């Protein structure tokens, strides 16, 4: 611990060093005096022989082991003192940095949680999932590819899960969880009033055990709970327990009615554990054993249906398991399972069953829909934020350079007095790092606020019925990231000034001239401004492209008219009060009651309405057409509607008639198809009067086509894809299918989830009146949401909106910083050239000429910046092409616009110093020389 002792006794050491050298000096003088030289002359000679005493001392200190720490402490103190003496500079630098670091950290907060985080379970590295695609929520049939190609399996039926679990030795434990969401109505036994809505998820009994999670309260599910005939139990998530039940301990062990059936809540999952699925819809509030599914769904249950793939599988592998071998084993098990269902397969499925594949993938992060949905956007934002940070760095580097130039004389004196260059460079870097660390701390506050804002912008549409497992509060990795970024930026923007310091010439100080010498330093400043201009242009043009893309998305032709329309989301089945056959009457009544509200011109219901995020579909067969080949795509979406649907939503009929009151249980089964369906299956033929039905071919006669309606964009994705084929069938007709999965869909679809209301001219209190009317029809009806249709569409583009807004914000900050940078460099240049300008004016240059001269120089920098920025912006456009809708990466108009914007900002930034230069008084300028 010698260095520590030396550090603590620093003052004594310093005094000793001084005393030792002074002794030497005096001895030498005395020797000279003895040899006959007069004392004053002896002193002078000795001083010359000695050279720089401070330099010797510094060398001695460096030889001592404590030097690094001792000088570091000294330098830190010195740095803080220097920063404190320049509050304006420090404040500007810290604020700029706080913005840059804050923006980057805010985005990283989300990147870390969405893209990097593992599940909060024990040993997430041992978890592997079967499948590698982020699929949702149900797939029908023995293939997971709509067009009959062999596919990569990611979802499985229960039977296959049981088979894998029993036979795969590589897994210590294999769990299954429902890939989709289960809408629940929960009510404590013995209470009345409307039930709570909740999201449920079916899991296998060993789900929690496989993940290695233990209960917060009570106990979690075990295999014994997941047996047919076992008493129905469920586990609540910590989030739901806290948010919906106020952490009430009596929840555990109590009886609840879940969708009308009695369940006991046996426990609460631990805090922080939100399940194995990360999505921004339907995070599970309640986990229930798989085997309770038939109890809730009766004839529509999927549990024993081998044609329905609805489970995600995740397992904990044994330590020595080789993933490749595991995958091979699972693949052969899948083939074995498929081979047992040949009789049940369609010809297309039979053609490819041996080629079906399956892959295992690391499961430590669970099944992240967020990762799939948000990665691209987040990466884009991360890049943008880094650009802003770079612009900020350039600004501070510029500030430091200007400061360094101003302090040049001081630096030169310090070099002359014996300060080592290494220590000067270290000092300069230390100053930058101190600045960036203070900026980083301020940046954390910015990051926290910004992350909250981003979460609000990105996920506000989800907040009504669900929540998103992403938090704004910083975690340890985020703090480390911010610290790392702060250090890194400190070094980045500190390098130029430090380099400059290391080249300070002591002679400059002796010369005493405060004149601009050597263009090199000035050049560094200009290069920074050029870089800033280029980066700002890229940011602005990216923002403009994303903004244009968002506008195009929101204002595209959806094929229906959202104006004056409202969307109601309900669930009539949850309480189990409505028998299937009563549903038609229920919706009849709802329609009548809502139509009576003043201002309402139309009401109609559907299994799902456009842009609600739902999509049902299957392969179809057209009567009289040959069986499609294995490669033919014969997929169509479908929904059930009540009469008047097309008028209510504002879609035009192209041929035939719409569905009306006469299409009921007593008449032939009809369907209205959309234009894309007509083109896809009938080409130029007249589709009216033709028959079709869901595959297999024996159902081909199920529906008679009575009309063609225009295409509506129904799904919330694929806006660049051609319109999807779709058909509409009446709520009041029920077909009968032999295939259990079709039959299940047929019944299930009669539970209409959406009501569309057409009430133009914003009638007062429409939302309250709708809710009131619905409660009057049935107080047990679960109402999730009533919102204007335009808001529904906006909600679809929340993510794009968030990205475009943030990019605009980043672009604006970048532009502002670049303008400040240009202003700084230009006014510094003007200050340096004051005497030159004075001379020019003295010999006849007028104010205009001086302004032009200053502006010319500023604009050269901006022009070079544009020269680099424009190609870069075009390149960035191509990189972002996948995020753009209806905006070409090469967009001259848009580029011209951003160039003008940047140019105007630069003009303002340069005119101020130019005018100041022009007001130089020649006499004054010359006299100060």
């Amino acid at each position, binding site marked *: 611990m010698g260095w520590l002792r030396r550090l603590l006794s620093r003052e004594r050491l310093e005094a000793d060093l001084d005393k*030792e050298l002074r*002794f*030497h000096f005096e*001895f030498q003088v005395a020797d000279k005096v003895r040899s006959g030289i007069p004392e004053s002359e002896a002193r002078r000679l000795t001083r010359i022989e000695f*050279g*720089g005493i401070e330099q010797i001392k510094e*060398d*001695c200190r460096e*030889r001592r082991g404590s030097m690094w720490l001792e000088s570091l402490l000294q330098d830190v103190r010195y740095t803080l003192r220097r920063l404190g003496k320049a509050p304006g500079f420090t404040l500007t630098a810290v604020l700029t940095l706080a913005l840059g670091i804050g923006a980057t950290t805010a985005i990283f907060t989300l990147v870390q949680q969405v893209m990097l985080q593992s599940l909060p379970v024990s040993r997430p590295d041992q978890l592997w999932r079967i499948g590698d695609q982020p699929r949702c929520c149900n797939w029908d049939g023995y293939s997971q590819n709509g067009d009959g190609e062999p596919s990569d399996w990611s979802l499985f039926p229960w039977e296959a899960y049981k088979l894998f679990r029993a036979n795969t030795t590589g897994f210590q434990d294999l769990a299954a969880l429902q890939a989709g969401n289960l809408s629940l109505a929960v009510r404590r036994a013995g209470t009345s009033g409307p039930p709570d809505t909740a999201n449920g998820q079916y899991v296998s009994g060993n789900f929690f055990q496989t993940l290695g999670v233990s209960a917060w309260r009570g106990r979690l599910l075990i295999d014994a709970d997941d047996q047919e005939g076992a008493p129905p139990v469920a586990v609540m998530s910590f989030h739901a327990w806290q948010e919906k039940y106020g952490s009430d301990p009596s929840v555990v062990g109590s009886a609840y009615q879940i969708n009308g059936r009695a369940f006991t809540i046996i426990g609460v999952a631990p805090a922080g554990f939100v399940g194995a699925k990360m999505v921004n819809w339907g995070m599970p509030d309640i986990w229930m054993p798989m085997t309770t599914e038939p109890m809730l769904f009766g004839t529509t249950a999927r549990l024993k249906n081998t044609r329905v793939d609805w489970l995600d599988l995740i397992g904990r592998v044994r330590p020595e398991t080789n993933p490749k071998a595991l995958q091979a084993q699972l693949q052969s098990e899948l083939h074995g399972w498929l081979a047992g269902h040949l009789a049940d397969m369609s010809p297309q499925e039979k053609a490819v069953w041996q080629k079906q594949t399956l892959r295992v993938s690391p499961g430590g992060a669970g099944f992240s829909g967020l990762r799939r949905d948000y990665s691209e956007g987040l990466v884009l934002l991360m890049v943008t934020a880094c650009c802003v940070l770079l612009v900020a760095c350039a600004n501070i580097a510029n500030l430091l350079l200007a400061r360094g130039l101003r302090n040049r004389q001081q630096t030169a004196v310090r070099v002359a007095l014996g300060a080592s260059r290494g220590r000067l460079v270290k000092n300069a870097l230390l100053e930058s790092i101190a600045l960036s660390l203070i900026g980083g701390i301020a940046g954390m506050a910015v990051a926290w606020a910004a992350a909250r804002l981003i979460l609000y912008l990105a996920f506000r549409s989800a907040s009504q019925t669900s929540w998103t497992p992403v938090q704004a509060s910083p975690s340890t990795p985020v703090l480390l990231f911010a610290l790392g970024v702060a250090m890194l930026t400190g070094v980045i923007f500190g390098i130029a000034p430090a380099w400059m310091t290391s080249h300070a010439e002591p002679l400059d100080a002796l010369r005493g001239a405060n004149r601009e010498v050597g263009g090199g330093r000035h050049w560094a400043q200009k290069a920074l401004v050029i870089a800033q201009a280029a980066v700002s242009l890229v940011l602005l043009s990216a923002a403009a492209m994303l903004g244009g893309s968002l506008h195009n998305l929101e204002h595209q032709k959806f094929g229906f008219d959202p104006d004056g329309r409202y969307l109601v989301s309900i669930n009539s089945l949850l309480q189990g009060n409505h028998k299937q056959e009563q549903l038609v009457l229920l919706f009849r009544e709802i329609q009548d009651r809502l139509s009576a509200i003043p201002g309402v011109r139309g009401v109609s219901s559907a299994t799902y309405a456009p842009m609600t995020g739902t999509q049902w579909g299957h392969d179809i067969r057209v009567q009289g057409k040959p069986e499609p080949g294995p490669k033919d795509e014969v997929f169509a979406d479908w929904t059930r509607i009540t009469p008047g649907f097309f008028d209510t939503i504002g879609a035009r009929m192209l041929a035939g008639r719409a569905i009306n009151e006469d299409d009921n249980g007593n008449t032939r089964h009809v369907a209205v198809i959309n234009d894309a369906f007509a083109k896809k299956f009938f080409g130029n033929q007249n589709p009216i009067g033709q028959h079709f039905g869901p595959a297999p071919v024996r159902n081909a006669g199920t529906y008679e086509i009575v009309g063609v309606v225009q295409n509506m964009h129904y799904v919330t994705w694929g806006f660049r894809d051609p319109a999807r084929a779709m058909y509409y069938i009446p709520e009041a007709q029920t077909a009968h299918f032999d295939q259990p999965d079709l039959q299940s869909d047929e019944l299930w679809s009669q539970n209409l989830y959406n009501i569309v209301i057409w009430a133009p001219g914003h009638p007062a209190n429409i939302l309250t009146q709708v809710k009131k009317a619905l409660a009057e029809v049935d107080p047990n009806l679960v109402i999730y949401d009533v919102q204007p249709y335009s808001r529904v569409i906006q909600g679809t583009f929340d993510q794009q909106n968030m990205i475009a807004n943030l990019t605009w914000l980043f672009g604006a900050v970048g532009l502002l910083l670049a303008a400040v940078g240009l202003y700084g460099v230009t006014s510094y240049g003007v200050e340096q050239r004051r005497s030159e300008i004075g001379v020019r004016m003295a010999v006849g240059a007028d104010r205009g000429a001086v302004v032009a001269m200053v502006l010319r120089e500023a604009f050269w920098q901006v022009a070079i910046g544009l020269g680099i920025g424009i190609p870069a912006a075009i390149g960035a456009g191509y990189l972002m092409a996948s995020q753009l809708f209806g905006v070409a990466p090469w967009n001259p108009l848009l580029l011209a616009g951003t160039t003008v914007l940047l140019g105007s900002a630069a003009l303002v930034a340069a005119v101020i110093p130019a005018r100041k230069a022009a007001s130089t008084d020649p006499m004054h300028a010359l006299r100060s020389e």
Partner: protein
Amino acid sequence: MKKTDDRFDLPQGTLDLLIMRVVSLGPIHGYAIAQRIQQISRDALQVQQGSLYPALHRLEYKKLLSSRWKPSETGREAKFYELTSKGRTHLKAETENWTRLTDVVSLILEGTLEGI
């Protein structure tokens, strides 16, 4: 600072060796070390303060030298350096090294090079 023809630069590390040798003769302060080296070398070597003191401090840090303040011949307190036992061993080894090295170097430089 000025160099005359009969003075020359010391090879790297040699100064340490010279200092240790001088110090090995008994406790001595910095100024006397410089004087002694100059004297012994018959003015061929003049050790600058800028090299001497950093070297002394380095040797002290490496625990080859120890130091003590005591009155000097003029009565003023001076910092006297002494060789530690570690320094003694080090000096012995380094001196042997040096002798071997100079023998080998002169063997080559002054030899007849018949072997080639």
